[in-house]
């Protein structure tokens, strides 16, 4: 086959599922209506922390139209997304850990009946102490929210050290010591989670669900229901937004599966908006302290980072999230010595987990705001300052993260140029300012959630005499455009139109395993698998065509739904004729492709979190207007450049970036997954402050600024046609860029997210009173850290292993 310019890749085009989406024909889980279908509602705990003394379901069972009432004893097997924290039950058997923890389920002829009956269930609770904050959980070991974890109510405390960071900081010319806080936020997908379960005619279990991770749900169902996975079929319906919020196996999924098995009738549940807030698994609130030593020449000598995560009531992805708060500090700027210590505590709130950027936006915020302070102190332009310390390509960082291509410097230059940064920074009138920040993110996690050596993504192709191609892959369309990437890549390789390819995705019966739509992994991993499968199909076709036309294979061109001789383009066959020839010659045509990421060079415990085939990079300049009297803040313009490697479909890439700016501004300015503790002398209540889409403030279209998006395209050898991720990375620079812009506008630091008018006013008042011109947390608590694992950086003769780690336990235990 001979090379040619791409026909599909790199051109903006209508995504393959656009028609269905805009005409309302996409069938989301809640759109599924089946004959004899019943409806389920969950009864959730009204207590934040309590022992269940008794549950009386007799009144609920007696309600007309009720078919089944389930409680914890019906589903005794625990499960959880990480093998190290299988701490969830579909229905709480003996104890509730937050307001919203499911206690019982009612299946009835309709939702109203199920909801009414659920309220007839009497649950007697024995209240336990309420843990409302990490400070509470650190201060009191008893009662324990869980009977596992490091100790008391500390779920996990980790410490990693790469070189003698204390000496590096002590020897530095300047030391910066800053404490930041990043409030929790939730995903806010438009689609509320929904699941329909049924027995198929064979008697096997089928579960349709709005999940980002059908494979992991498949495993959790097999475990919790004690069934062979081969007898369970999970079909991921198109998600109306995921953002990480549909990546865990959820109570409601397991409950309706159990109910469908018991009743032999389809059972459906669609969560209310309030329940979506309670499922959560969103951004961890993180308190963090950065101690950074900086040399006189502006290079970083060393960084010492501590993070404290409010994990909520369950493990979820929390151990991975904890490591992520310290994993990516080193992949943007040179940090020769580095220590990271992270601690996640349990509290009586909905569990936190992965939200777009998973654990990294919080510490990225702190890092980028601190860099802004450093640059100011050194009297260097923050853009210039960053450009001097950008990590070079093809390098290994202090914590053994492998950086391949890095377009960060180009991203910085581009936003600086387009925003006219040099004419604005520190030059705008009081009340107007610009701020710059950068970021990086993984193009897929290097390791799966559970230990195995199998591929992370598989693609099967079926070609037949119709000329059509069907692509099967376990990847899940959550709105990000993964189906479009799949058909686009296959069409490109085979020289046909994306419309000629049918995507069958996210179905554990029909499709090869793909680990799911999380960690920005799908384009790269599924993409590489798809290219491999398509190239194998192309080879088969080429062989048949070469025989028939007497043209050497290496002269054949696949393009425009034809296969032809590169030297005599008119000499060739239609694509359909080629498939017929191949089918005649070889029999039924099917190919497979799979992808496994390269091995990580880090071999220390925890080193499994952070590695990826390649990192994406982003830089952003945000312009703000801040009223110096009221603190009112407006964002009129945002410039953002993203190192995408290669934009497979630029329309989708730009959409992802603009969506990330939107979500980033929400986190920067208003979003808070906040909780209300009533006065303890009067009540033990701890409730979500306002679990409604009206009062959980997220920007509307009227709040959006003008966005100027630039794509930096240097194809990365690891990515399909050079592509990197874009689903998460562009979110990260927005929050610190806003905070830095506020400082440029009015000279006060808001070292906490969200940046609100009240906080700006408090900082202004502090400044006026002669105190530090900032609003933010005062101190980081003393935490009883474990001895850090000592890993020498590559340039200090390190081999990626910890010198003080028990050799037997060097196998990486924590992965994501």
């Amino acid at each position, binding site marked *: 086959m001979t090379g040619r310019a791409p026909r599909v890749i790199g051109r903006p085009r209508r995504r393959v599922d656009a028609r269905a989406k805009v005409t309302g024909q996409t069938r989301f889980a809640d759109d599924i209506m089946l004959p004899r279908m019943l409806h389920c509602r969950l009864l*959730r705990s*009204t*207590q934040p922390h309590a022992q269940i003394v008794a549950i009386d379901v007799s009144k609920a069972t007696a309600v007309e139209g009720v078919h089944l009432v389930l409680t914890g004893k019906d589903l005794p097997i625990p499960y959880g997304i990480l093998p190290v924290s299988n701490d969830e039950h579909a229905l709480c058997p003996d104890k509730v850990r937050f*307001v919203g923890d499911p206690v019982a389920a009612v299946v009835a002829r309709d*939702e*109203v009946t199920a*909801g009414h009956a659920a*309220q007839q269930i009497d649950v007697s609770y024995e209240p336990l102490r309420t843990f409302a904050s990490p400070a509470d959980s650190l201060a009191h070991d008893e009662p324990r929210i869980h009977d596992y974890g490091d100790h008391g109510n500390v779920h996990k405390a980790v410490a990693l050290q790469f070189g003698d960071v204390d000496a590096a900081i002590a020897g530095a010319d300047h030391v910066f010591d800053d404490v930041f806080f990043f409030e929790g936020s939730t995903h806010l997908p438009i689609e*509320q989670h929904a699941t329909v379960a049924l027995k198929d005619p064979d008697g096997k279990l089928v579960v349709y669900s709005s999940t980002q991770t059908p494979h992991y749900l498949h495993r959790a169902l097999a475990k919790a229901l004690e069934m062979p996975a081969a007898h369970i079929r999970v079909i991921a319906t198109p998600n109306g937004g995921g953002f990480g919020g549909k990546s865990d196996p959820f109570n409601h999924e397991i409950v309706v599966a159990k109910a469908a098995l018991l009743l032999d009738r389809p059972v459906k549940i*669609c*969560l*209310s*908006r*309030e329940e979506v807030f309670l499922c959560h698994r969103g951004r961890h609130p993180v308190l963090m302290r950065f101690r950074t030593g900086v040399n006189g020449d502006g290079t970083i000598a060393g960084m010492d980072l501590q993070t404290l995560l409010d994990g909520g009531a369950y493990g979820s992805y929390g151990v991975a999230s904890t490591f992520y708060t310290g994993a990516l500090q080193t992949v943007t700027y040179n940090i020769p010595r580095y220590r990271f210590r992270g601690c996640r505590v349990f509290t009586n709130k909905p569990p936190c987990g992965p939200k777009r950027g998973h654990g990294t936006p919080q510490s990225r915020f702190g890092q980028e705001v601190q860099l802004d302070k450093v640059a100011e102190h050194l009297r260097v332009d923050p853009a210039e300052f960053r450009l001097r310390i950008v990590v070079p390509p093809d390098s290994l960082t202090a914590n053994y993260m492998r950086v391949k291509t890095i377009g960060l410097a180009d991203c910085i230059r581009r936003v600086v140029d387009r925003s006219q940064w040099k004419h604005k920074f520190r030059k705008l009138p009081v009340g107007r300012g610009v701020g710059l920040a950068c970021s990086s993110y993984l193009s897929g996690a290097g390791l799966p959630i559970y230990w195995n050596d199998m591929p992370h993504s598989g693609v099967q192709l079926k070609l037949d005499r119709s000329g059509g191609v069907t692509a099967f892959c376990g990847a899940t369309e959550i709105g990000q455009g993964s189906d479009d990437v799949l058909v686009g890549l296959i069409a490109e390789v085979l020289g046909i139109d994306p419309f000629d390819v049918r995507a069958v995705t996210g179905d554990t019966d029909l499709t090869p395993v793909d680990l799911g739509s999380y960690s920005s992994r799908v384009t790269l991993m599924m993409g590489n698998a798809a290219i491999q499968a398509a190239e194998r199909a192309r080879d088969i076709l080429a062989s048949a065509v070469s025989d028939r036309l007497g043209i050497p294979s290496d002269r054949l061109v696949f393009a425009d739904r034809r296969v032809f001789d590169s030297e005599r383009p008119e000499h060739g066959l239609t694509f359909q004729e080629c498939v017929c020839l191949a089918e005649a010659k070889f029999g039924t045509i099917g190919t497979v492709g799979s992808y496994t990421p390269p091995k990580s060079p880090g071999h220390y415990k925890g080193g499994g979190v952070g590695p990826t085939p390649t990192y994406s990079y982003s830089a952003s300049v945000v312009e703000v*207007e801040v*009223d110096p*009297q*009221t*603190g*009112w803040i*407006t964002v009129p313009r945002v410039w953002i450049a993203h190192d995408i490697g290669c934009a497979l479909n630029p329309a989708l890439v730009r959409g992802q970036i603009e969506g990330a700016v939107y979500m980033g501004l929400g986190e920067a300015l*208003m979003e808070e997954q906040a909780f*209300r503790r*009533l*006065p303890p002398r*009067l*009540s033990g*209540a701890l*409730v*979500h*402050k*306002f*679990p*409604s889409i*009206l*009062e959980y*403030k997220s*920007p*509307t*279209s*009227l*709040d959006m600024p003008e966005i100027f998006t630039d794509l930096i395209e240097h194809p990365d050898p690891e990515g399909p046609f050079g592509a990197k991720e874009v689903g998460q990375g562009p979110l990260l620079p927005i929050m610190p860029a806003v905070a830095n812009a506020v400082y440029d506008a009015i000279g006060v630091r808001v070292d906490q997210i969200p940046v*609100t*008018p*009240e906080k700006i*006013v408090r900082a202004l008042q502090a400044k006026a009173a002669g105190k530090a011109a900032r609003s933010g947390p005062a101190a980081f608590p003393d935490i009883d850290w474990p001895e850090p694992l000592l890993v020498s950086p590559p340039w200090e003769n390190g081999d990626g292993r910890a010198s003080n780690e028990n050799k037997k336990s060097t196998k990486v235990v924590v992965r994501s």
Partner: protein
Amino acid sequence: MMRLPAFRYRAARTIADAATWLAENPAETMLIAGGTDVLPKMKRRQQTPTTLIGLRAIRELAEIRNGNGFTIGAGVTLSKLLAHPGMRASYSGLFQAIAQIATPHLRNMGTIGGNVCLDTRCTYYDQTYEWRKAIDFCLKKDGDRCWVATSSPQCLAVSSTDTAPMLLALGASVTLVSSAGQRVIPLGELFANDGMHYLTRRPDEILTTITLPSSEGWRSAYWKLRRRGSFDFPVAAAASAAKLDGLDVVDIRIVLGAVASRPVECHAAATVLKGQRLTDQRIAEAAAVASEVAKPMDNTDYELVWRKSMVRTLVSHALHEIRGDDMSDRRRQLARQQLLALA
């Protein structure tokens, strides 16, 4: 998802029918026009009427009549009012208030009468049954304690209507009809500063019309504080209408929204300005006086101290706009949209 409880729906075609039906069992009956407030509250079991009387089919409630002033049927949708050129030209403050209510979809359904009678709001009240159960309920519904101020004998839910403060500033009156007859009262008499009993409307009465006096010589403005450019209820608002002779204030009313359980008229601030020239200094003085009567509580979005401080800003902006200052930058920043300049 959340579902409505069972209820009986009676579609009235005349005001007389509606009034007769309402009188049958006023305690268990509610009126419904657009339903944008009633229905979500029923889903959350904040309100549990056994009967809803639908007002949508009553033609005379949906009429706008021009005379010496304006008579607006309580059932006129907010969208229809917004599109009414005479209203926009003569009562620009009302236009600004309505343009900032909720979203276009909700304005297409919601009515002016519904907004005037809007239930008071509170973070402890506007929640689902399950949420309220988790705090053991509150004074306004099913409980016996006000969680906003735990020693308060009275419910402190906040008046959240955008139109009422502006209509008050414009000098509106309202007509209430019951099976026993009808009465016309100044709008200010419709409200009481009590989060639970915030309307003086008798349970058997129907708000049928809102009457605005002639706007001849008057200018008006409405400034609303909320977090976002659309969708949100006010957490503080300033409505003002003034009759000016050049820059001299002949008459003026200033009314605050969302800082108490009823719209609050700032008589003292008006006194500062009456008969005076509308100078920067007078405006600042009046804004300071007005903000003193604001008593926001910690039961809405934003911290209450800051909210209170913003009242002064809002009043000041409104007065500057009435004076004819170019407030378009401030509007863009605060409202996230350009509301019309004064006619």
